[in-house]
């Protein structure tokens, strides 16, 4: 059993290695696009951080957090955004086209998991370089907040957990494209959910906050790990985050099968 799991992981890693190489070669052929992608992401990161700075020039606190705490939270969310932009973002935009044109057929025929092949097939090497910026900002505000050694060690894992939860939710939502004639609008729903998650839970009123922490737990992506980092006694949302990750990856398997059952395979 264990041997089987390891051999599958090895197989997927070797496939992903091929994907990485192909994407790097492709991006080097379109160098201007490569640089524009970096610039676009940087503009977004800088405008997000500058907005917080400008607001804090006029107020002492927002909710219960001071300037550095909120900026650390935003930097953490930008870190998750950078991972998403690098590893999966492109695939979400190509997915409706795969369904509409029937090109999904060719992916389903491959001897590898279709979800993996659909969502992890495109890598944006340009966005990968922006890791320097996002991690730079995370470290800068982490140092101001005097994070402990445990916090620093936990930080990369928390970032990956946030990435996993965000994308499990987004992949489930993307599956709704199977039932739509033109599914590109669903990508805007995804982006709006990202916008909502980019702010801490306490800015929303109690009902909205509760819904976005439980039924559609997008606020757990950032608020749960950061609250846990700031106060280890505040572990309940973090536990909820772990459960939500398991739940949504499970739901994804189910919804994906359901979607495939109604997929009409336009090219066949």
């Amino acid at each position: 059993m264990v041997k089987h799991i390891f051999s599958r992981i090895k197989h997927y890693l070797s496939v992903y290695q091929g994907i990485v190489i192909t994407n790097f070669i492709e991006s080097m052929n379109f160098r201007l696009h490569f640089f524009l992608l970096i610039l676009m992401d940087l503009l977004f990161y800088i405008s997000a951080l500058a907005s917080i700075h400008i607001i804090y020039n006029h107020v002492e606190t927002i909710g219960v957090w001071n300037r550095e705490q909120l900026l650390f939270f935003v930097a953490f969310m930008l870190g998750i955004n950078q991972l998403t932009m690098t590893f999966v973002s492109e695939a979400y935009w190509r997915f409706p086209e795969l369904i509409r044109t029937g090109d999904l057929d060719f992916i389903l025929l491959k001897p590898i998991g279709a979800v993996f092949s659909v969502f992890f097939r495109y890598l944006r090497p340009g966005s990968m370089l922006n890791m320097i910026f996002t991690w730079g900002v995370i470290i800068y505000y982490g140092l101001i907040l005097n994070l402990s050694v445990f916090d620093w060690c936990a930080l990369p894992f928390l970032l990956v957990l946030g990435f996993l939860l965000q994308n499990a939710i987004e992949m489930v939502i993307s599956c709704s494209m199977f039932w739509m004639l033109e599914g590109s609008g669903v990508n805007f729903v995804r982006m709006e959910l990202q916008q909502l998650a980019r702010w801490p839970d306490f800015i929303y009123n109690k009902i909205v906050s509760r819904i976005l922490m439980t039924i559609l737990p997008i606020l757990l992506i950032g608020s749960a790990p950061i609250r846990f980092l700031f106060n280890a006694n505040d572990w309940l949302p973090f536990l909820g985050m772990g459960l939500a990750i398991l739940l949504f990856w499970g739901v994804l398997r189910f919804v994906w099968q359901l979607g495939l059952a109604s997929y009409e395979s336009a090219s066949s």
Partner: protein
Amino acid sequence: MKPFLLKWFQTMQVSWSNLMVYKLNFFLQIIGPMLVFFFIKLSLWSSIYGGYDYVKIGGYTLSEMLSYHLWVMIAGMIIMSSTASNLSEDIRLGKISSYLIYPFSFWEFHAAKYLARQVIQIIIALITIISCYFLLDRLYIAFEPVSLAIGFFVALLAGYYWFAANYLIGILAFWLDETWTIMVGLQIMTYFFSGAIIPLELFPETMVEILYWTPFPYISFVPAKILMGHIPPLLPVIGILSFWSLFITLISYLVWRKGLSLYTAAGM
């Protein structure tokens, strides 16, 4: 109807049909993001003010701030209707060849599409204003016909600028494989510098003085303030907006001419 106008009207009719076929997609792409963006700002500013209406930040009370953001949303509905997202694909895939033969130019076709969308978005903006007027009482919507008329006029002018800027970016596809990164970059800068997130009164003074010479404040801040009843001297507003609109249109014309000389009509 004169044949010249008929061409415009028929293109607009085709655009309306296209939009109506994918109604949900249209809602998710255009209206949904605006509503979510407004909801986030409503939550954020309510949290910043702590729910107290007597506190003033940048000269705004909470209800004035919420009113400002409501008008920003309405102005956005009128101004940011053009996306020109298909434009670069038309050029890259050689689809513009047909426009070179038709008695209706590429610019006219896209301008007619923009007008069609504009009509729908104006209707949506009007419905939003009427709904808010009755649902939210006069707290957020001060219904002043003169301000409304001038605000709509400035918004329509800014809308043309937005179309011209998007068109210019779209036709850069003569040289670039992808132009969406530049479009998104422009959107990010516009959201930040236009006062769509934070009113310009909260920005550093020197920065605002410079910004007034750029088209950004006229996309959110100025129309929203006019719609709120604060009418600035109109000559500079119309002058600067007209200058940028004409300047971008002229550049587009030159870029189009240069681009056509390089055009290889792929797929012909």
